[in-house]
């Protein structure tokens, strides 16, 4: 810990307030007319770290959904106002914007969408098109610009083909998936070719329930021109368990054979967008009900190799019909991306209203 002061890291806190919305009506999902719904939320995060820095992020997120039989569209975007030692900036991000068309059994989805192929919480190597990240309190998958065609095989299985093209088609990503349910387990087999990264990845995922919920994923990536033994292995195993409806706990371990071995490699990987560049990680979260309208939670990510940990405490309140408020506070003993050991603290709030 740097004793000279406190810097603000833009890592976590929030203050979320407000939200206003419009109406939606005709909630019949299969009715002849369009049905509309959405959610708006305002959140704020502030963070401090051990060098004289601070930062904040005030974000307004809006999600709009429209559907009628056979067609579904969704738009979700976030506008952020960021402050930090270098001043204030604004940013906009488009989380999802897609159109889904389902003529008969075939489902075609076009646009920025979450291609969810895995079961993992914070890490999901089986997801060959969607990265996972920790946003505020919860891990979530990031949308990919893709065309996706899905076809069912029986009641619980199916095949999918996904193309995420680039301006040069050879730089695009193209993949497929076969999934199903057998012996009390959900499983998926995936493969994809990433032209820009010049690699081909195959992956498998399985999830079952043996009192504990258990899941495992494995992915093996082979760079162009490399031999079969020169690939990179990544695997995740996790479990969850609950007591009644009032306590829930989950834990997940990730091993990435190609992960960074030192800070220099970590920074290199972080520059390429890898949020967790090291080799061994553990993620765990637990939540407990505190009455009928409130819950308390704790989540933690640990870089086992470098001894860096972050922990977040949260409280969520069901304020009113369709309105929820979440507050949290977090602490990190260092940066997961740069592997430095500077402490950081953050807090935040989020108010969301569905309409």
């Amino acid at each position, binding site marked *: 810990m740097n004793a000279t002061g406190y810097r603000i890291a833009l890592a976590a806190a929030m203050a979320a307030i407000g939200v206003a919305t419009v109406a*939606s009506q005709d*909630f*019949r*999902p*299969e009715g002849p007319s369009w*049905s509309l*719904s*959405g*959610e708006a939320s305002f959140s704020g995060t502030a963070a401090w770290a051990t060098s004289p820095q601070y930062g904040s992020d005030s974000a307004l997120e809006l*999600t709009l*959904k429209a*559907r009628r039989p056979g067609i*579904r569209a*969704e738009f979700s975007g976030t506008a952020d106002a960021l402050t930090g030692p270098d001043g204030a900036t604004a940013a906009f991000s488009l989380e999802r914007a897609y159109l*889904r068309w*389902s003529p008969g*059994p075939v*489902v075609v989805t076009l646009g920025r*969408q*979450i*291609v*969810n192929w895995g079961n993992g919480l914070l890490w999901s190597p089986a997801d060959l098109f969607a990265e996972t990240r920790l946003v505020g309190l919860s891990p*979530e*998958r990031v949308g990919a610009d893709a065309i996706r065609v*899905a*076809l*069912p095989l*029986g*009641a*619980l*299985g*199916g095949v999918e083909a996904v193309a995420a093209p680039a301006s040069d088609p050879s730089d695009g990503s193209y993949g497929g998936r076969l999934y199903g*349910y057998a012996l009390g387990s*959900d499983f998926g087999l995936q493969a994809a070719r990433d032209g820009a990264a010049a690699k081909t990845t195959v992956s498998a995922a399985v*999830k079952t*329930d043996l*009192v504990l*919920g258990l899941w495992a994923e494995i992915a093996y990536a082979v760079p162009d021109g490399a031999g079969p033994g020169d690939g990179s292995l990544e695997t995740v195993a996790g479990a969850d368990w*609950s007591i*009644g*409806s009032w306590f829930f706990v989950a834990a997940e371990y990730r091993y990435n054979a190609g992960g960074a071995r030192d800070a220099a490699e970590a920074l290199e990987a972080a520059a390429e967008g890898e949020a967790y560049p090291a080799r061994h990680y553990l993620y765990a979260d637990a939540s407990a009900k505190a009455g*009928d*309208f409130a819950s308390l939670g704790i989540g933690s990510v640990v870089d086992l190799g470098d001894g860096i940990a972050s922990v977040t405490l949260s409280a969520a309140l*069901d304020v009113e*019909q*369709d309105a929820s408020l979440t507050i949290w506070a977090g602490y990190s003993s260092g940066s997961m991306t740069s592997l430095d050991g500077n402490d950081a603290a953050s807090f935040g709030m989020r108010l969301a209203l*569905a*309409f």
Partner: protein
Amino acid sequence: MKRSLIMACALWAAVYAWAQAPADAPSAAAILARIDSNESFKSIEYTGRMEIRIGEEFRIKTMRVQAIGADKAMVEFTNPEDAGTRMLKLDKDLWMYFPKEQDTVRISGHLLKEGMMGSDVSYEDALESDELSSTYSATVTGEAEIGGRRAFVVELKALTPKAKFDRRVMRVDAERFVVLSEDMYARSGRLLKTMEARKVERLGGRWYPTVFVLEDKLRKNTSTTMSLGSLVLDIDLDPGLFTRAALER
């Protein structure tokens, strides 16, 4: 000696139950068969409204439900907070789809006993598909008046440990053979749930409860009122609706 005592007690219980039963009451087996016949369907479709009361607070969930027999069902929540969340039931298994994450999760194990979307209705309640007559033995133990209607009191005892409740006490409309109210008990004798039908409608030649109140007695001061609207029975539904692909559509 011990065996003789048990047999004597069993005989006494049977005689007592027979003596308590109304003289014109059909047999318990016949009542269960009439209930099963009345409440079973080839297919069903309705819009549901779940009014969850927790103390003085209320939360409303709305949904559209489609089902074929007792083994295939698709539920789509339509209230703003849960819009697009779907449940697929196939036999004894249940999958939930969460649209924001585009994630499908199988609900299993003891989670099935938990309240669905914060209500007094458990996933297991929603999954229950066994006919009463194949899961419970029954005895007519008396008569009661529920909401001005004559009812037979029928006690059910589980025939299998897999039954959802060890004992159930039903008040069954003596004319329509609809369950007007019910108390559900654990093996320990603890009251777990109660149900009260608030509205019974005639649909295509049969009587069906369309508004009923469930109370989970393990929770404090809560109840869930379920209302079924636009209910139609025995219509043609596409089996393709009851697939994981349709769940994620």
